Every structure is written in structure tokens, then in C-alpha cells.
């Protein structure tokens, strides 16, 4: 009932997988700590690492003023570090500025976009440095982008020596080969890494076709397979508001048909997914174990999955974690 007896197969590789931390400093620190706590050989952050909002912090007469959670907060300038740390925990980017700069950013979308990109890149640089400082040298740290991550961030990841970013590449993990793709099918939000289902299917196939025959693989695809139970999200109307039926939000599958078809066709050992925060779970598609650990970054909680891989590349066991 609790899984097949695994006989003489022994663990060769332990993966810790988390996703969708969206700029949360506390979640990223927990992600690094997970290597030690769960005794993982490889830790993988599967996309959507970038934060979503900048909190302008106005400097006026020795005081700092900002709007946090709908309420205005005023603290002495000396409290900057604490305020910035508190905001960073929730994935917000605090930026000190004066009223003139605030006005300029409000009127100049391009300047605001540049500011976002620079904040995200700076955060990624800090995170990579932190990984280098905290991780045991034997632990591999893989960070791949998701649809919400600006393409500029890839360069930061690629340039850093301690972190690997095998986006659109084959990655040898020992008993298995991993392929990664952060692109998702078109969303109503028109984010940076989107394409049609056909194009997505083509990109996945091109990568998986390169895996040598008979070699076990795992796929790190940000979007979960369609109608897998890992992709349930609120149904939206034309104004992007949740549809209410029977007094409750209507929930529908919003995953990718191309991802599902690829998994059915290639039958990788494991599918690592994210994208839909509330659809935490694990499902089998054929012989493939598909996992979406979900995300609860705004509460400072890191949801993840521990996956044990045997010497022959098969999946020994898995566990969804909350930390």
C-alpha cells in the first residue's frame, strides 16, 4: 500500500526540488538549508524566482515612508535594514527614492521596467553568492527560469561559478539526465517566456530526442501536464476575475497538453513542475511520477519535494515537504 518493496535497489541520488519562490529571501535561504536538512545531493529551483513588486521607500526628513500591505508605514532612517529585510522576506523589492524619482517612474514605464530588471538581477547575484557561501561543495545547485523570470537573469546565473542553469540543455545528474524548460503555453498575462502548445511540444521533443536511447531521464518543465491534478487553478472570466459557481471559485485544469503528450510519449522517470501554486501534489502519467510541490512563498513557507533515484535511474521514493 505504501509503495512497492524496493528490494536491493539503493539510492544513488537525492534531489530536493522547489519552485516559484518569487523573490522571497526567506524561502531562498530555506532552499539552501534544504540541502543539509534533507541530505540532498542536488537542489533544484525550478523557475519563477523573480519577485513581483517594488516598494518605493520615500526618504523625508530623516524618516522612511512606505506602503506595506495596504497600510502606510513610517520608520526612522536608522531602521532601513530591518524594514528592507522584512519586505524582502515576502518577495518585495524595497527601493529608496525621493518624490521626484517616484513621479518619474510613475510616468515612465520603460524606466520602471529597467529598475525591475536591475533589482531582479541584483537579487540573483546575491543569491548565487549566498549559495557559494553556504552550500557544501559536494552539493549541486541548479536554478532554472520560469515564465515570470526576465531573460536577463539567465546571464547572471550562467556567469556564476557555483550555480548551474541548464535551461534548454541536457544535464547529467549521474543515474539520470535532466532536461529543463521554463517556457509555458500562452497565459492571459503575456509574460516573457510563453509560446504556443505546438512550439512548446517541439522544444521539449528536440531536447528529449537528444537523450541517448535507454538512458533514464527526468524533465524539469515549469508548466505541469494538462488535467493531471497538478494544474488545477481558478477559472477566469474575460476580465480575469475568478468565476464563482455554487458559492465557490470554479477550479479547472490549466496545464499544458504538450507537456502531457511529451511525458506520455517519452516516459521520463520523473517530471518536476511548478507554475500553479495551489495545485501541490504528485500524480503518475504512465510510468512517470509527476510532482508539483506548490508554492507558499508569501507566507515565508518553502514547499518542496524530496526524490530518491536508484542506481539504475528509477525512482525509489518521493516525499512532499513543507518547511
Amino acid at each position: 500500500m505504501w509503495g512497492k518493496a524496493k528490494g536491493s535497489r539503493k539510492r544513488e541520488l537525492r534531489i530536493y526540488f522547489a519552485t516559484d519562490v518569487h523573490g522571497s529571501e526567506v524561502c531562498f535561504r530555506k532552499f539552501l538549508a534544504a540541502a543539509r536538512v534533507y541530505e540532498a545531493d542536488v537542489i533544484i529551483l525550478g523557475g519563477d524566482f523573480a519577485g513581483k513588486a517594488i516598494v518605493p521607500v520615500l526618504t523625508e526628513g530623516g524618516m522612511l515612508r512606505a506602503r506595506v500591505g495596504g497600510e502606510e508605514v513610517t520608520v526612522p532612517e536608522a531602521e532601513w535594514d530591518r524594514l528592507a529585510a522584512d519586505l524582502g522576506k515576502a518577495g518585495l523589492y524595497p527601493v529608496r527614492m525621493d518624490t521626484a524619482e517616484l513621479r518619474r517612474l510613475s510616468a515612465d514605464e520603460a524606466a520602471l521596467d529597467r529598475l525591475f530588471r536591475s533589482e531582479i538581477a541584483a537579487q540573483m547575484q546575491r543569491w548565487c553568492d549566498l549559495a557559494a557561501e553556504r552550500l557544501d561543495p559536494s552539493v549541486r545547485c541548479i536554478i532554472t527560469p520560469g515564465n515570470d523570470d526576465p531573460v536577463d537573469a539567465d546571464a547572471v546565473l550562467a556567469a556564476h561559478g557555483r550555480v548551474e542553469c541548464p535551461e534548454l540543455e541536457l544535464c547529467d545528474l549521474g543515474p539520470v539526465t535532466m532536461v529543463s524548460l521554463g517556457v509555458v503555453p500562452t497565459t492571459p498575462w503575456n509574460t516573457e517566456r510563453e509560446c504556443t502548445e505546438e512550439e512548446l511540444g517541439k522544444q521539449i521533443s528536440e531536447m528529449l530526442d537528444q537523450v541517448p536511447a535507454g538512458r533514464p531521464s527526468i524533465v524539469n518543465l515549469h508548466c505541469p501536464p494538462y488535467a493531471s491534478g497538478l494544474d488545477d487553478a481558478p477559472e477566469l472570466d474575460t476580465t480575469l476575475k475568478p468565476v464563482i459557481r455554487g458559492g465557490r471559485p470554479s477550479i479547472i485544469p490549466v496545464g499544458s497538453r504538450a507537456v502531457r503528450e511529451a511525458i506520455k510519449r517519452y516516459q521520463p522517470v520523473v517530471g518536476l513542475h511548478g507554475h500553479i501554486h495551489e495545485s501541490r501534489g504528485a500524480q503518475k502519467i504512465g510510468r512517470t511520477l509527476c510532482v508539483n510541490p506548490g508554492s507558499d512563498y508569501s507566507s515565508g513557507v518553502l514547499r518542496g519535494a524530496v526524490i530518491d533515484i536508484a542506481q539504475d535511474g528509477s525512482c525509489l521514493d518521493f516525499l512532499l515537504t513543507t518547511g
Partner: protein
Amino acid sequence: MTSSSEASVPAGAARAGGTESTRLFVRQTSGLVRELGIPAATGISLASVAVVNTFINFNAGLTDFAKADMYLPLVAGAVIWLVAMFAYRYLLRAVPRAGGEYVYLSRIVSPVAGSVAGLGIAVVFTYVLSTNAHFAAQFTPFMLSGLGAAFHSTAVANAGNHLTSNIAIAWLSVVVMLIVAALSLFSVRIVARIIFWLIVLQVLAFVVLIGMLAFNSHADFVSALATYSNHPNAYGAIIAGAKANGVVFGTSIAAAVAIIPFMVLNYNGVLYSYYVGGELRRPGRTYLYASAISIGVLVVLWIGVWALLRARAGLTFMQAQANLGVINPTAYGKITSLSSVAGGLGYGMVLSGDPITKILFATAVPLAEIAVNLAFLTVTTRVLFAQAFDRLLPVRVADIGERNHAPNVAISIVVVVGIGFCFLTSLVNLGSIVALQSLFFALILLAGGVAATMLPLRRADLLTTPGMPDDARKKWLRNVALVGGATTVLALFTVYELVAHSSVYGKFQWESILTLVIVLGAGPVIYVIARAVRRQRNALDLNMAMRELPPE
């Protein structure tokens, strides 16, 4: 993409909101704005309460306690939920996610406590499914009687008389469970539509009943009862029969206090918008308004209908009718064919002059129970899902059907266990079914109170606002602890009342104790077994799922 718990802005480039000095810049990312406002959240709260179930609880209060009146219990029940509402507001603010007590306990108290609560709730909710099916089965004779009257069919009306034995009630409960199971196999979208229309029907029945009571006089009721019963003085005969059988009339404070747990159960569900905390816009505020409005609406509706029932039927008559039907059903049956458990809906049936309203009243309770069971089945399977993901239960429990996208295995488990409970509740003396249900829900409320009390002690970091001065922070945390403590005390009071009146609310016999032990012990037992089996198979240690990751 992100969840509905996001605060991002859909479409368009990065943009700003708020006043000039305090705006927040949000970049273009996928995800929803929290869009469920107060009206939607209020709808969720009201939909989670079976409005017509109040007649079941009125009847239970009248039969289980002498000199029962409902004014004080209705108000006290509302006050208890009102205090709890503030405690859950803080919990929701700290953990603005779906999941309820399982999530709150696992985050704030300990992951193991969360798991125990999760399994307990799964068992309790499965039990509730069976008690709801049992209620629907008990109302079948009343339903057939009403439908017979509506369609002028004595065969249909009399059919109910053959469905009153324990074994008949047990099988009828099973039929209700199977109907619910069959409906649950449709997609979630269709199930939601079915629930919605079933709720519309029961609310319609309630509103029609209020109108009927408001527009008829006491004399009209007495006369209508005589006609309905084919007994010229049915009203007086019922009161006289009750007197002769020792029924005590009037009101007493002690009885009113003792009935409070029934009314706590009556309001259960009124705060359930916290279960969709991730979708609420400004969750703390929206939840607070939605819950307060819902409690207010229910207080007005239920106190209003109780006042109308007292004015039209009379308290003495209601006490006489409910008790005579239990103490001396033969004598009662000789006076009238009106079901003694139907309460207000029965009085509506008596006053009803047309077949449409008769059908409405006749089917209100069974349809309401099916609606509630559909909703509970969805929640229960979700709780089982969570346990399966944490490997406390077999992973297969979370399997999704290829065709219907429904959790067929989880549904099957809940229905099979629920059917087992149906036979137990019908054939075995478990004490008062309603009362055990009250005790379970009181314990869930207690769990919420404990989580709120522990919140400032264990996870103050989830509560405080960035930049909040230390003094304000301390005061704020103290308030949270006080509200949590008050909720815990009120929940304990409810538990005390249940235990103090165990002769009514579930005698502590071996059957009822065994049930309680199964419910409360299921979590730890399954945890220990699952962990041992996994250790034996050299699989990942379950403890790993419960480890806290250091944030620094």
C-alpha cells in the same frame, strides 16, 4: 503562472497603485489579483450553512430538554462564532491560504499536530456525511407524505409509514450516500452547479415558509392542522396528549444554556470563507465583513423564523408535538400524520395550500443534505489528498480519473467508510448522533482557538507588519493572544456543555467512546503505521515531511 494568492496585476506593463507618496509598483507577471470581494465571500459563507438544518436542531433541542426555547441559544451560538471570527481573522492574516485548521495547526503548533487534525477532520467529515444521510433518510417519510399530498396519492403518502424502522433508515441513508457519490463523479464544475441549485431550492423553501408564517394567523394554523390531520381538535389533542405523557411546558435558562451546543452546530460553516483565504482580496478585512454579514443574516433569519413559529404554532404546541412524537408515537399517530420531527417545515406543509409549496417543503431537507454532503465530500477528499501527498496515506488515494478528472479513489474510500457509518448510526446505539457531531465541531473550533492563541507565541513573524514599532507590535500580539484565548475558552465551554449533558449529547458508552477514540486516534495511529512500514521498506522517513527548515 502563479496562484490566486498573488497580488500582481494582470496584463499591461508595470504599473503603480495607491497614492503618489505610497504607491506600490507591480511588474507584469502571471497570476491573479485577489479578486474575491465581500459579496463573493459572503456567498461562500452562507452557502456553507445548511439553512433548513435549523429545524433539525430546533427539534433536537425541544425533545432533549424540557422547557426549551431557542432565543438564548441562537444568540449565544452567534456570539461564540463572532468571537471565533476574530481569531480566524488573525490566523487568516498570518497564513492567507486555503486549508483551514490543518494548515494553521501544522504551521503554528507543529506539523504533526496539523497531520493529526487533518486525519481527524477527514474521519469527522466522513462521519458527518453519514449523519447528514441519516437526517435525509429520517425525513423520507415526511417527504413522501408531502409529495403524496401534492400529487393526491395516498399510496405515496402511506409509503413513508413503511420506512421508519432502523434498518429502513439505514438503507435509505446508503441510497443517499450513493446518490452523492454518483453526483461527485462529475467534474468539479458540474458538481458546483448542482450544489448551487440545491442551495437555491432550500433557501427558496425557507423564504416561502417565512412568508407563509407571516401571512397566516394562529387561528389559521390551528384550523389548517385540523384539516391536515382529519381531526377537528388536533392542536388541543396534541397538547393534552403531551401533558398526559408528562411533557413539561414553559421555558428555563438552564435548558436554554444546555441547548447552546446545538446552535453552535447550527452556525457551523458561517466562517468558511477562510477555507478560500488565498482568493480573498485584502483577506483579513474581506473575511471579517463576509463573516459578520453572514452571522447577522442568519441571526435575523433564524430568530425571525423562531419568533414566527412561536407566534403561529405556539411554544407549548411545539414542545408538545416534538415530545409526544418521541414519548408516545402511537398516541401521536392517532391524532395526526404530520411528522413530529419536521418542525417548521411541517408547519409550512400544514399551511400550504398548493402542490408547489408542498413539494418545496417536502424535499427541502433531503435536497439540503445532498447539497451539504456534496460539499463535504469535496472537502473530505481534499483532506485525504493532503495526507496522501505527505505519504501518511497511500499515494493512490490522490489518483485523478483520466476521464472525469475526479479523485475517484478518494471518493470511493469516503463513500465506503460513510456507508459503514450509516449502518452504525442507524443500528448501533452511539448516543445522540447530532451531539457527537457537535462535539467534533467543537473540537475543531477548539483547534482553531488554540492555533490563534499560539500564533503570537510561536509565529509572531507571520503577524507583524514591516516597520511596526516595538510597542505597537507587543500590543498587537497581546490582542491576538487574547482573542485566541477567548475563542479557546468558548470552545471549551461548548465542550464542557456537551460532556456535562452527555445523556443528551452522546453517552459515554463503549460504542461512543470507541467512535471518539477512532476519530481522535486515527492521525497518530496512521502516522505510526505508515512510518514503520516505510522504515521497513527503506523508503524516505516520514519525519522528513515534518522538518522545519531554518530561515537563516
